[in-house]
């Protein structure tokens, strides 16, 4: 259980929705692979549910029920509305007419022969497609293996009890303010996750810096946020041998700068 200690107490916080997005992302990655923590998380969710359930009941106005059922009916009546997930169970049975079709021998066999010919024309292209699909699947397996290796590297870093964890926040930006979290260990490298990052102007990039107590800041890499403002940066090689005092993100020219020059977006100290 020792290796789970860094996560155990945070699982309660996750179930109660108290963690910041970067911490949530890191814990969810761990939960994907750890049955023990998943069980603890499920229990924490149960406790969170109990707190919801402890709320004294309140009677809603009757009109809400009517409006709900009316909107469900309207949704079902809409053309193209999806049917029941169990629609296959309600699939129409063969009609007596279709059953009678096969009682007419000649026409039935003629159609069967035509079907064989059509099938031959279909099978050969299908074989080619199958080969293409096999090649695509192999490529997918290789990509998944690569992803798994990277996930393991992240987990090694997250599990290490001596990894430095630093929360970076913005002191000036308006809500939702950019924030991030660094997991750093000189041996295993660095993981940085961030959220609520504003989009960058063309030709600009975010850059993460490690600032030692004395000496110049070292760059941990550049990154760009996705459309939702989330970003992740991972480096297997630590940019400096000792634990830095401060981490900071600045906006720099595309490709990065040798030292921080642009505006500071977020900062955190250990």
């Amino acid at each position: 259980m020792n290796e789970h200690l860094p996560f155990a107490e945070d699982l309660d916080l996750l179930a109660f929705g108290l963690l910041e997005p970067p911490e949530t992302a890191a814990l969810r990655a761990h939960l994907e692979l750890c049955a023990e923590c998943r069980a603890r998380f499920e229990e924490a969710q149960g406790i969170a549910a109990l707190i919801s359930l402890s709320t004294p009941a309140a009677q809603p106005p009757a009109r809400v029920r009517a409006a709900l059922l009316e909107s469900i009916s309207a949704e079902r009546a809409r053309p193209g509305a999806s049917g029941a997930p169990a629609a296959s169970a309600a699939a129409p049975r063969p009609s007596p007419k279709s059953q009678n079709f096969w009682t007419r021998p000649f026409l039935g066999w003629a159609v069967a022969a035509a079907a064989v010919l059509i099938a031959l024309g279909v099978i050969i292209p299908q074989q080619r497609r199958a080969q293409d699909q096999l090649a695509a699947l192999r490529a997918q397996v290789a990509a998944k293996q690569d992803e798994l290796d990277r996930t393991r590297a992240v987990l090694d870093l997250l599990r290490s009890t001596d990894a430095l964890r630093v929360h970076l926040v913005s002191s000036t930006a308006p809500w939702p303010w950019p924030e991030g979290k660094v997991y750093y260990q000189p041996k295993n490298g660095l993981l940085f996750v961030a959220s609520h990052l504003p989009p960058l102007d063309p030709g600009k990039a975010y850059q993460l810096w490690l600032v030692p107590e004395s000496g110049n800041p070292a760059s941990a890499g550049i990154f760009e946020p996705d459309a939702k403002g989330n970003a992740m940066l991972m480096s297997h090689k630590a940019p400096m041998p000792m634990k830095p005092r401060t981490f900071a993100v600045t906006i720099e020219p595309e490709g990065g700068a040798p030292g921080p020059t642009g505006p500071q977006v977020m900062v955190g100290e250990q």
Partner: protein
Amino acid sequence: MDRSDEASRSQRAETRVPDPALVLRIVNRDELALAEVYDRYGSLVYAVALRVLRDGPAAEEVLQDTFHRLWSIAARFDPARGSLPAWLAVTARHRAIDYLRQRRPAGESEAVAVEIHLPFDLEEQISRNGLMDHVRGALGRLPDAQRNLVELAYFQGMTHTELARSTGEPLGTVKTRLRAALASLRKELAEILRPSKK
């Protein structure tokens, strides 16, 4: 409670359609089953939404939204593994907090798990009020500062950082108090979540 009340309740229990059967009917697009679930748990969902939003019309919106959600995802809900009222209550809380903060509803992975495990018949527990008393008791026994934080966090959806800004306490203090509060709640409530203690 006299004997006639008890007999009547017992008869109702026998004729009551179990939650899993209602969910199955909802999967098959049975609107009456949705109405039955609403009659059973609508007041609970509304209460949770109202607790978060403190605004009747907004809570009504969340109430409808939560049942729409059930209608949409019923096929993925396994009532044999999860508790329907627990799922409804937690979903209502998430939806209400999204509403409160004008956020778009979170995606699948960030929102509520499809199954929330509660190893007992909640309807039965609610009818005896024992469960709710137990939970309220556990919350009530927390020190005031811890309970206030749990209330703000759980029913206002504030994160650590927001709690620190809102209360003026250092982030470290907020985290320590919350962890202590949740550890106490786990200690008191986890027992009733374990089937062996049922």
